């Protein structure tokens, strides 16, 4: 048991002294996940919104597919993108494998279904009269769309945060596409896996605590936004 306490003690020291190694790892995680979630926001929200308000053939299939993709295993995404990004693959000339950009891409693929699903639900849960009212008042399609988006803002923000939660703690994509390169693509989860393999618990515990704290913070925001959405 002793080594656990020693590890925890060292972990706390690292956190309070803002250990450089630890900070660099946390930064990689934050940067990659932020960028991927930005992409997922810019693509997922319009997509979810569009599916929610439009009626088109095959809509049900799209919705079911989108929900299925929620449980897409990270390693499958990693495997697929790996085969595309390798120099031998169709996108090999971009030289993206083992860069943070590959991780961003992978995390975007992971978070897109979540962001679009939750956006879809948030838009659908709006009062159907909102759109009609807007139209009656003489709004154009664009105007009524932006009105609806505004009405659903809390739900949309929650969608983005849920997406962030998904990618921030994932390891499959980060390990397979990033390669766990120190101070470049080594993020919180891949570092924890490496440190545990080496039997070094301190850095692992410190990173785990940071990961949990950030997730905790996000969930507070998520909870706050959801309540706001319900009361609105």
């Amino acid at each position, binding site marked *: 048991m002793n080594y656990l306490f020693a590890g925890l003690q060292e972990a706390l020291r690292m956190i309070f002294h803002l250990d450089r190694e630890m900070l660099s790892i946390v930064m990689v995680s934050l*940067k990659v996940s*932020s*960028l991927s979630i*930005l992409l997922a926001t810019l693509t997922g929200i319009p997509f979810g919104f569009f599916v929610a308000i439009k009626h088109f053939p095959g809509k049900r299939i799209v919705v079911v597919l989108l929900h299925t993709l929620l449980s897409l295993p990270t390693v499958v995404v990693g495997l697929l993108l790996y085969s595309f990004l*390798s*120099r*031998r693959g169709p996108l*090999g*000339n971009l*030289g993206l*494998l*083992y860069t*943070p950009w590959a991780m961003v891409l992978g995390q975007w693929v992971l978070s897109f279904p979540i962001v679009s699903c939750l956006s879809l639900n948030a838009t659908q849960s709006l009062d159907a009269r909102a759109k009609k009212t807007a139209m009656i008042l003489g709004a154009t399609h664009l105007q009524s769309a932006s009105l609806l988006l505004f009405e659903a803002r809390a739900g949309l*923000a929650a969608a983005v945060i849920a997406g962030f939660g998904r990618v921030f703690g994932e390891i499959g994509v980060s390990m397979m596409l990033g*390669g*766990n*390169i*120190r101070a*470049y*693509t080594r993020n919180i989860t891949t570092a924890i896996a490496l440190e*545990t*393999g*080496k*039997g*070094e618990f301190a850095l692992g515990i410190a990173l785990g605590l940071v990961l949990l704290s950030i997730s905790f913070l996000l969930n507070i925001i998520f909870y706050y936004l959801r309540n706001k959405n319900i009361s609105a």
Partner: protein
Amino acid sequence: MRLLLAVWILWVGLFPLSLSGAERIKMATTTSLDNSGFLDYLLPKFAKEYGIKIDVIAVGTGKALKLGENGDVDLLFVHAPKAEAEFVRKGFGVQRTTVMYNYFLIVGPPRDPAQIKGKNAIESLRRIYRGQYTFVSRGDESGTHKKEKELWKMAGLKPGGSWYLEAGQGMAATLQIADEKRGYTLVDTSTFLALQNKLDLVALSQDKERLLNLYSVMAVNPKKYPRVKYGAAMKFIEWISSRRGKVLIREFTTQGKRTFFPIDTLHP
């Protein structure tokens, strides 16, 4: 909320800037060189002298060679002579230079139920096999795994069964598994020295004749993959095999012990 959003977008926008800077090349290497701390010691010195940052992808030698074969890396630092020769023969690698060596060890629990202490590698494996004592194999086509398979073959045995565990992980993780399972495993000296004080395992069979461990560097053939950074990779190869490189290799210690030996001191 809006302020939060603005700060976040700014932060994300600045991200690409932080990635520019020095030239970077990718090196696929064995987990042993990474786990032992050798690369953390060596590469910053190279970066300082040449302004080239080397990104390390630490996988087994088998996987490293695959990455080279696919042109996903520029440089290789590996330890499986036969597989390397094959790699060069197929035209994927050039300028293969063997730069240093050390030895493998067979390690096991201090109680040593198979009684292999002081025995040669072949006899040790035979005893482990006969008594069906737990043996943890890398199982990942790494250089160490290839060596292990070679030894089993030399012993004329085909390991298998519930006592023979294939970890499929790096050297450090495999050592941890062997430690937890009170089993035997084959390990390179550098990783073992680096992790020794966290393990109960002890070195049991040290067979200098059969357990030689040769490390080589080579560049990925630019004729196969014109986009690989051949020039920068060559700079590293020349640097590591120069006098200066040899001195650095010799001076590296783990737990106060010399870990690698530059190749010109090898007298077989």
